């Protein structure tokens, strides 16, 4: 559905993306991740044929997004990051305008407008002016607009930004249900969301692809995260001082409650120090009631891949 070949975009003095190549197959929900300024929005803007690349090619449904732009755009529903809307139009009117711009008319237009209003929960506000809508509703209007012509491909740039937890859950469910019929490329910073919705994740950093795999495989690549949780009574020992002496421990944070020390130990990712900690506890005659290594999440992968020390 999407094919990107050696895509490069340079702005004066800045390389936004460099030599990006990836493919998205029909029916996939792909999460497009990366820190701010990594080039996510730039890539999406090129795919939606809003800005041309400096170098390289991109195809949507087999159509070059620049040479065959109009055909490519017909297959695409795009929700830009800032969700720009015309404040002077009413919701219903806006959806009908955009539908007709995308080639719908007559009965079909009415049916599609009704369908997307239903899907995005806009029925009760269809006669309101867009300027008077809350952020959550604006987001939904944007999403409804992207969906109105039943595009094969949806490109959503941070669809849940600025929404409250209930709305985020709603949008997440919506995206999941849309994934049955549409191919979706979405960018977001809420990684838990990606873990439950996306079948594949592409992580970019400084304009280059760092990883592209299923969330499970990515998490599997980092076996363990860098945090060990210990709860123990340590007698007269200061747990922070003792634990920090173990090789591989980066830092220890401890607090005390009813004589029990709860310690969070940060260690190198991919290293398991639980046995060392247990041995130490036995030697020192500590009583332990918890010793766990936290399960790695996509967040750990993300941090690992895109962390910079500067």
């Amino acid at each position, binding site marked *: 559905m999407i094919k990107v070949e050696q895509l490069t975009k340079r702005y004066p003095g800045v390389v936004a993306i460099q030599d990006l190549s990836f493919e998205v197959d029909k029916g996939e929900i792909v999460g497009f991740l990366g820190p701010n300024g990594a080039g996510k929005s730039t890539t999406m803007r090129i795919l939606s044929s*809003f800005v041309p690349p400096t170098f390289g090619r991109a195809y949507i449904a087999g159509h070059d997004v620049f040479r065959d732009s109009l055909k490519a755009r017909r297959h695409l529903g795009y929700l830009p990051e800032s969700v720009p809307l015309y404040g002077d139009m009413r919701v219903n009117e806006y959806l009908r305008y955009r539908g007709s711009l995308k*080639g719908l008319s007559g009965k079909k237009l009415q049916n599609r407008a009704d369908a997307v209003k239903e899907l995005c929960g806009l029925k009760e506000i269809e006669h309101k002016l867009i300027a008077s809508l809350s952020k959550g509703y604006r987001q939904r209007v944007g999403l409804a607009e992207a969906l109105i012509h039943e595009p094969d491909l949806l490109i959503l740039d941070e669809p849940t930004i600025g929404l409250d937890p209930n709305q985020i859950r709603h949008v997440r469910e919506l995206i999941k249900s849309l994934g049955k019929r549409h191919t979706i490329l979405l960018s977001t910073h809420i990684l838990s969301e990606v873990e439950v919705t996306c079948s594949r994740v592409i992580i970019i950093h400084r304009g280059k692809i760092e990883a592209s795999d299923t969330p499970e495989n990515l998490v599997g690549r980092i076996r363990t995260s860098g945090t060990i949780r210990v709860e123990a009574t340590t007698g007269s020992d200061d747990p922070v001082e003792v634990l920090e002496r173990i090789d591989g421990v980066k830092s220890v944070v401890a607090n005390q409650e009813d004589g029990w020390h709860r310690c969070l130990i940060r260690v190198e990712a991919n290293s398991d120090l639980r046995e060392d900690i247990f041995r130490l506890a036995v030697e020192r005659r500590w009583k332990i009631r918890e010793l766990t290594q936290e399960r790695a999440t996509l967040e750990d992968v993300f941090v690992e891949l895109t962390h910079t020390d500067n």
Partner: protein
Amino acid sequence: MKRLFTLLQRELSVFYYSPIAYIVLFLFLILNGLSFWFAIALLNRAPSENTVVQVFFNSAFFWISYLLVFPVITMRSFAEEFKLGTIETLMTAPVRDWEVVASKFMAAMLFYLSLWLPSLFYFLIFGWLGNRSAIGSAAQVWAPYLLLLVMGMFNVALGCLASAMTSDQIVAAMISLMLTIGFFFVTLINYVVNSSSPILREMTAYVAQLDHMDSFSRGVVDSRVFVFYPSMAFLLLFITYQIFQYRRWKV
């Protein structure tokens, strides 16, 4: 074609949704009314060789309202899309760039033309009430409106160009006003230079809107303006199209 119509409908609705349209319409009615009243009052005072149409289209009221209207009706067209960011949703829908430019130009033209309708009715009603000779021949009534159409094309295109250059409506209005008034005053070079340079005279004669209106309101239709103004409008729209494309790709 259907897309162009959809875009045009949207652009026209922008005018009639905003209060600016009604303020402009209101001021225009007042200025045109004053101009008309002024023309009749002048002719009442003493016998004159001029018709009402002639006096109306050569009064200061007319020229002020004519020149000021272009920045107001065009300042929003492109600048607002860039400012709101709606340019991104607009241009990622399956529409061609030239369709967007054309629809914005056509909408502004239609609004501009609708502003002159009331004055046309003044003349028709005035003539119908029995003062046919004060109105002049049919050509004397229609000719100024034909000229307004083509001069409007030129100035609206100037306004579109100004609006495409910036994301700020006020800046767009300023640029547009500067260009419109600038071209208008070219006429005056004719009077100032006073035939010292025939080439300059000939060149400025093309954009001499004052002179054109003077002859058209007498019923003298000069076909050159029908070539010059529309082709200049086309050229300006082409530049607008280029700037529009350049700015959107630079985002």
